[in-house]
């Protein structure tokens, strides 16, 4: 299954229409697409409008490939799960976002091993064809752990405990989470 997601805010029909065209000639590959608040119909995609977090995670886990706008939520989730990801940045000139920060994000994130960036529908088709030709090879496991990198956590921990004495049992090592 291929999972496509455009995030929680504005519609992103440009990406979905292109995906729909591709799906028409690759009908053996099921595609579930979270399409947001759009009035368009995508004949070759199995669409959902908005999904709760638990379902989002479920689709991400089940997917062999994720196609998405350049939203950090999706990029980080795909990294955590080791899923190959194709991202298309939203552009302000098409009214797809308030500004072009997704282009900057894409540029920076293209360094990640699991991420392929495409600028338009044509490039999306080529990238999809390549992934299928490779047999959906999963990228090597990301070097990241589930947690944020250590310096940021340390800065935050210091900030949180600034006016409190850190209990002895949490001072040297992280406390076990209360599961």
């Amino acid at each position, binding site marked *: 299954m291929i999972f496509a997601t455009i995030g929680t805010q504005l519609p992103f029909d440009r990406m979905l229409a292109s995906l729909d065209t591709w799906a028409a000639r690759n009908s053996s590959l099921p595609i579930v697409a979270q399409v947001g608040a759009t009035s368009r119909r995508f004949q070759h995609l199995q669409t959902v409008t908005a999904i709760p977090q638990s379902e989002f995670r479920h689709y991400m886990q089940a997917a062999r490939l994720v196609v998405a706008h350049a939203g950090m939520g999706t*990029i980080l989730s795909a990294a955590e799960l080791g899923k190959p990801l194709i991202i298309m940045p939203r552009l302000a000139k098409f009214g797809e976002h308030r500004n072009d*920060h997704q282009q900057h994000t894409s540029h920076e994130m293209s360094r990640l091993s699991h991420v392929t960036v495409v600028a338009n529908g044509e490039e999306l088709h080529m990238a999809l064809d390549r992934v299928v030709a490779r047999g959906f090879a999963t990228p090597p496991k990301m070097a990241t752990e589930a947690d*944020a990198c250590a310096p*940021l956590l340390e*800065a*935050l921990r210091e900030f*949180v405990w600034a006016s409190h004495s850190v209990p002895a049992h949490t001072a040297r090592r992280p*406390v076990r989470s209360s599961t």
Partner: protein
Amino acid sequence: MREEKQSRPVVLAVSSSGGHWVQMLRVSPAFRGAEVHYVTTDRSAAHQVKADHFHTIIDANKDTPIRLTICALKLIWLVASVRPDAVVSTGAAGGYLAIRIARLFGARTMFIDSIANARELSMSARLSLKVADRVLCQWPRVAETTGTEYRGAVI
């Protein structure tokens, strides 16, 4: 020496849904041992945190003034009842509002700008620079030119 409280700190962790929330989850290990109150715009995110306290606010931005007002009122109520020692936000508008409000109640405040903003600060981060104790940015080059701090990133 400054008098230190023995109890655990109360943290209000405020973020919008989507990428902001995913980033909050990634920094949440830093809250271990504290009493954490999560505040976000998506009710369905509740099961993702093992917190005793989970609150929702209405999603709003600068183009939705009425929703923004409703959001601010809920945040005033939350800050007044939770009385956090520290407020941490990963954005966006609701997080900035929470920080502004929490300052009035004497809480320490930190805004962490989204890693999505690789070239310039978000508007919420720019506004937070005027009111928050700390504003962190996840890109060193952006931090250099904006007076924010770079302390690493969520990835």
